[in-house]
């Protein structure tokens, strides 16, 4: 692809992303759009650690929940605006990620994945039993009418939540793009490809992993804060659930792990599928929607293990091969 074609495509996609919520008047459609954007951010954040650096985390809800709780607590107890709380939450999540990362990065592959599951479960239990932050009852956020951006609460138009998330998503993508091109990006890939080789060529692998996890945790926590502002109610089962951890990971893998635009593709498919099947078939607690959700995951994994973008690339490669002999 020529360079200007790429620019035109990016501009078109951006325009579409901005116009899209105005074309969809129903609240449910807006809700779906907001979730798509939220999981695009979360998937991208997960990708930094899981996709680029190769450390599979199944406990990212820890950072998501820390973000949600920090901004909510600061708002409820001290009346601090969520934008500040969001950044503080991001910093706390980063610190927690370093505390988690220091001992667990010694673990490889499955041992690390299981450790993150264990940490996720432990964190939820601790928050469930921590009375000062509401325990199992959860937290209700104070309602502030008037749709001011500073309060990060919008009643007149849900679109604004979408635009806030879109902004965060674009910043995230930009950050990942810059990292990918930088020395740090090469370190990430080196650690993913071969831990030993990276170590042998003088890369401080432990530090590289910590940096990846820190950035990942920071972005995840920011998304958590926005989610809390959107729901206006949080409890440990909502924000620390293992289903969120799993879904974050799925979004990134479904789109194609370690690819810049993988998460937005993955989250579009996953969120649309799960939300609409839940709306149509989810009644009665029969789990039909989740059967469809699970089946889709199984099919993608079984027939296209490299994710949707991997599939696109394979088709392209085949076409190129077909073209060469003719030329």
């Amino acid at each position, binding site marked *: 692809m020529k360079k200007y074609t790429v620019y035109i495509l990016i501009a078109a996609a951006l325009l579409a992303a901005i116009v899209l919520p105005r074309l969809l008047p129903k609240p449910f459609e807006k809700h779906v759009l907001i979730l798509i954007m939220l999981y695009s951010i979360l998937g991208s954040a997960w990708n930094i650690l899981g996709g680029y650096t190769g450390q599979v985390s199944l406990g990212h809800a820890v950072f998501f929940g820390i973000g949600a709780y920090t901004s909510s607590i600061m708002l409820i107890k001290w009346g601090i605006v969520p934008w500040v709380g969001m950044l503080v939450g991001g910093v706390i999540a980063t610190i927690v990620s370093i505390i988690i990362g220091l*001992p667990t990065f010694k673990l490889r592959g499955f*041992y690390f994945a*299981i450790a993150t*599951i264990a940490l996720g479960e432990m964190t939820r*239990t601790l928050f469930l039993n921590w009375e000062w932050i509401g325990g199992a009852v959860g937290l209700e956020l104070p309602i502030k009418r008037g749709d001011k951006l500073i309060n990060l609460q919008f009643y007149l138009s849900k679109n604004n939540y979408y635009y806030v998330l879109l902004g965060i998503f674009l910043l995230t993508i930009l950050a990942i793009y810059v990292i990918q091109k930088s020395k740090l990006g090469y370190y990430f890939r080196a650690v993913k490809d071969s831990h030993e080789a990276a170590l042998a060529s003088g890369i401080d692998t432990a530090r590289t992993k910590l940096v990846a996890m820190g950035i990942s945790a920071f972005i995840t926590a920011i998304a958590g804060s926005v989610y809390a502002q959107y729901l206006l109610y949080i409890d440990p089962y909502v924000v620390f659930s293992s289903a969120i951890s799993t879904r974050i990971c799925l979004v990134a893998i479904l789109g194609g792990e370690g690819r810049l635009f993988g998460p937005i593709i993955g989250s579009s498919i996953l969120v649309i599928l799960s939300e609409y099947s839940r709306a149509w078939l989810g009644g009665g607690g029969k*789990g039909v929607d989740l059967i469809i959700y699970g089946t*889709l*995951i199984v099919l993608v*994994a079984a027939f296209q*293990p490299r994710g949707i973008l991997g599939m696109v690339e394979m088709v392209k490669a085949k076409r190129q091969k077909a073209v060469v002999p003719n030329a």
Partner: protein
Amino acid sequence: MNPFQVLIQTIVNGLLLGSIIALVAIGIAIIRGVMDMVNFAQGEFLMLGMYASYWINVKWNLDPLVSAPITIALMFILGVIVYKVLIARVIEAPMLAQMLLTFGLSIVLVNVGLFLWGSQFKTIPNVLVKGTISIGGVMVSLNALVPALVSLLMAGAVYWFLMKTRMGRAFQATSMNKKAAALVGIDTQTVYALAFGLAAACAGLAGSVLSISYYIFPGVGSVFNLYAFVAVCLGGFGSIPGAFIGGLMIGVSDSLAGFYISAAFKYVVAFGIYLVTVIFKPKGLFGW
């Protein structure tokens, strides 16, 4: 009871629970050892084993302990089918695809269970073994002791199979070096299919013996799944005795923490033990 007897009682209860976890864990260890992948749907095989026992009991009035061979056979066949239809496609794929597939499978199985049998808790009435016996002042309920013995027996049988039989040696060879095993004439695809079937059968038996003393519901697998994983990691992936001992340890820690600290924190303690162990021994207690 004096405090010492209480302690012993709690540990015994933990060992009984632990032996069920151990059986699920052995299945995970076999799959990990032979085909170098992790099956997140192992707990769901336990759930299916429980329902199989339940429905056999409803239809033909057979006790789960009597129908255990049928359950084992059914779960073995199911495991082989799952391998042939799904797992075989990702056996060479990256770890993430394998994880994704078994994750999806576990979601599907839980919800198929929910769809077919509803979310109500079921129990099996009139089980064969009931009551308690007292061993040196420690009360042991028979419907926990018998399952523990059965699962110990099964674990021993699996270990014997892997160590002493020709097929078991083929399993070992495949787990050591896939290519070399194929080179000396081992049909690795058959080994994989049998290993997956065996793992499913272990979980199925665990479900079968668990069904006489525990509630049967579609989500029952998740707790055991998580515990079994921690047990396998604790013991060291791929080590059968390690997985068994890991399972017992998790059972005891669950029981002790539930009694002496608080039921709410028993997961925290079990996972804490795991984290502390792997921080000092990153490949588990018996791993290499």
